[in-house]
């Protein structure tokens, strides 16, 4: 990565270099060696640890035996966003964490092998799957992110007519817009979108439900609806100075770097990132790669409570990001032109008491206020829920989390199913991972197939 002095300007060249995929893929020799190390376990724990249950020993064996098409097919069959997941899954916590070799040597690099096989599929241009015989049943999918794509892909393979309504100009959701390019280049996500489109799924982009298409139209026009609209941007902090110039939404910040050089200017600036989740880390490393002179993460708790994965934390440290633990932002201070100049913070201490979320509760230390001189503040304290859309659809929810039947993903409206981040948090446990969204998309697709099974038979019957 290129570090710069405050005097130089951020050039397109620098952008290309700094935002190119950071981790190199496996070479052919590397892939052969690594795949041959796999024990090909029976009833393998890595499969059970994968939310989408990819048959990992099988796809690895296929790499080892030079059957990359079969390998990619195994991966993508279980996970319609398997190429993205190869890059963004917290594999240490999932498949690789479950690998039996952890106990005796080193776990198999499943993520890199998965990337090797899916990269092959992407570059070869093969179409791995086909649409099913049309069954006359139509499904509208709201949201073209991992959950929506996953549901759409599964339904299309079974012969359902599927239309995805995507609010943004490009489908792919978080994978396309929300994960830094140096971890997940946009082309990967767009390839996955294309694979779904090739099955006859129509993706209507720039279509906001409730604005560009009405709820009534959807309900009348489709047999079933899958709500997979994810979450929104970052909610306000609720402190003074949030409207100053130089205050950014972390998700928007990342998003602006996904399709080209962002207009925002961080070159040589001092940046404070508020929050300590994976998005906060993304925003921080993004700022570094946009040329920021100094990036500090400001978090009111300690490292022990931060939700970012260990490997994300390590990556941020390597990138030179600093961490201010037990620091609570009080207000953002600007100059007379309305530009950020400092972040006022207060020191915190852990009380020793456990909060409702099971984490140690922090408390401000009286009189410990101090000023952090910064030029920009990036806010990364979670994501807004899509309450407006959920209510427009007339669905029951708990503070923006759509209530569903755990088995089928069906909402309070029997015509509507929900999957992905829009149901995340409702006692679902686990983490809002791309791979979980993919799994939920598959689950609702299966529930819809189950409900409509028999329907195509009767059509055939009447025709004969």
């Amino acid at each position, binding site marked *: 990565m290129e570090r710069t002095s405050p005097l130089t300007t951020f050039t397109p060249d620098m952008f290309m270099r700094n935002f190119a995929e950071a981790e190199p893929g496996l070479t052919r020799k590397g892939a*052969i*060696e690594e*795949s*041959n190390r796999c*024990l*090909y*376990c*029976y*009833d*393998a*724990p890595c499969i059970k640890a994968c939310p989408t249950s990819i048959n990992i020993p099988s796809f690895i064996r296929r790499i*080892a035996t030079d059957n990359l098409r079969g390998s990619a097919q195994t991966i993508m069959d279980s996970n319609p966003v398997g190429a993205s997941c190869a890059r963004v899954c917290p594999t240490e916590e999932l498949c690789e964490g479950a690998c*039996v*070799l952890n*106990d*005796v040597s080193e776990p198999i690099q499943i993520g890199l092998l998965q990337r090797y096989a899916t990269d092959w599929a992407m570059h070869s241009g093969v179409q791995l799957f086909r649409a099913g015989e049309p069954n006359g049943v139509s499904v509208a999918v709201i949201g073209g992110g991992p959950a929506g794509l996953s549901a759409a892909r599964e339904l299309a393979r079974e012969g359902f007519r599927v239309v995805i309504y995507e609010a943004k100009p490009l489908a792919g959701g978080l994978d396309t817009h929300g994960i830094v390019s140096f971890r997940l280049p946009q082309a990967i996500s767009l390839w996955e979108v294309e694979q779904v489109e090739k099955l006859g799924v129509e993706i209507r982009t720039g279509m906001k439900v409730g604005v560009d298409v009405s709820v009534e139209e959807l309900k009348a026009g489709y047999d079933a609806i899958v709500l997979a609209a994810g979450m929104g941007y970052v909610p306000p902090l609720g402190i003074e100075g949030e409207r100053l110039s130089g205050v950014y939404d972390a998700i928007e910040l990342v998003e602006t770097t996904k399709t080209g050089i962002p207009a925002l200017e961080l070159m040589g600036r001092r940046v404070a990132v508020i929050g300590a989740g994976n998005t906060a880390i993304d925003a921080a490393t993004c700022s570094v790669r946009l040329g920021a002179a100094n990036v500090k993460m400001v978090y009111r708790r300690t490292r022990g409570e931060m939700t970012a994965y260990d490997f994300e934390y390590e990556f941020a440290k390597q990138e030179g990001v600093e961490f201010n633990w037990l620091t609570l932002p009080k207000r953002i201070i600007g100059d007379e032109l309305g530009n950020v100049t400092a972040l006022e913070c207060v020191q915190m201490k852990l009380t020793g008491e456990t909060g409702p979320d099971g984490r140690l509760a922090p408390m401000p230390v009286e009189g410990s206020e101090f000023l952090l001189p910064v030029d920009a503040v990036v806010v990364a304290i979670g994501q807004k829920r899509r309450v407006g859309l959920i209510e427009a659809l007339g669905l029951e929810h708990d503070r923006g989390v759509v209530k569903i039947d755990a088995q089928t993903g069906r909402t309070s409206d029997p015509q509507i199913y929900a999957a992905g981040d829009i149901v995340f948090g409702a006692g679902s446990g686990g983490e809002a991972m791309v791979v979980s969204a993919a799994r939920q998309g598959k689950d609702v697709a299966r529930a819809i197939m189950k409900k409509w099974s028999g329907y195509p038979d009767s059509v055939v019957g009447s025709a004969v």
Partner: protein
Amino acid sequence: MADLSIDFAGIKSPNPFWLASAPPTNTGYQVQRAFEAGWGGAVWKTLGEPVINTSARFAAVHFGGQRVAGFNNIELITDRPLEVNLKEIYETKRRFPDHTIIASLMVEPKREKWHEIVKRVEAIGVDGLELNFGCPHGMAERGMGAASGQQPDLVLAQTAWVKEVATTPVIVKLTPNITDITVVARHAVKGGADAISLINTINSLAGVDIHSWNTIPNVGGQGAHGGYCGPAVKPIALSMVAECARDREVGVPISGIGGISTWQDVVEFMLMGSTGIQVCTAVMHHGFRIVEEMIDGLNHYLDGKGLASVTELIGQSVPRYSNWGDLDLNYKVVARINEENCINCNKCHIACEDASHQCIDMLTNAEGKAILQVREEDCVGCNLCSIVCPADGAIDMVALDSGLAPMSWNQRSRIISGVNGSYSEAEVV
């Protein structure tokens, strides 16, 4: 440090590591490099009427991402004039008087041809002769190599012709491409052989290119069978060495050949009756320097065993190798899984379930941990689980006291025929 020197049928060698007659012993330059690296002896690439070799000669079998599990060649004997080889043998012997040089020979099965070449080769000074009755390709079509090695009477006759004039020890190199190697070995001994060396290469086709559908290797789109060697052939070679070593009618020193690439292989071949060993493929793969690792490993092994001389290994395991019919049918081992070393890959379960006796259960213990357990009453002690197990110390094969006296099939058959005169079964050998 133990003494590594050997006396092989009267041939003194500083160590048991000899290069087999093959591409690495083609020239004086190579053999001298080998001696500098530490090889104790070399069997010069077979001398005879010079041949013309093909282009594309070698191929290998790779396994599980590892190169050269097996090796295949269609190269023939030396393609250089006899005078050139003899001159280089002379120079090499003069530079390395304490190292062993054996001349490998192959001529038409005619008495005068053998007499002529033996005299010419011995005249320049070699430590012994090795008669190549084993090369399976090219020369066999001309009635030499394996073609003569597959006919016991021709082996006997040719050995005898050589012995009529030879003044140095005569080693007969045997082909494995026969039904019972001891038959040929006995004929070599009857012909006067001072020692035998085995095995030569095994008839093979290394592979077929699944893209072009050509053979591997191919010479302009055509292939022919070659000779197979390398680590994959070691078990075949070892069993043939063992059969010859325990055959009383053979009874001459053995030079063990076939897939030897580590010091452990050397120990195994010597325990199974070899006085010395010969290596080719490991050198083809890694160069002459591989002998340094073999010598070092052997030295440490001998020191660890408290052995003063490598010769103390020779034949120690031969008495432990017999016939199936003499194995104790009342001996019982069962598999036991050590939970603390088990990594739960479940390979033992699926191997037993699909390929053996369905006696390894996947269970959950009281703490909710997944465990694997052998139902010992159903275990036949086949070893399969311990073979597929990738975790060190996870599966032990444990001997159980069956409470019964040892009883082999042959003993059992004799008892049955004694009890019932009208019924008898053939002994199993």
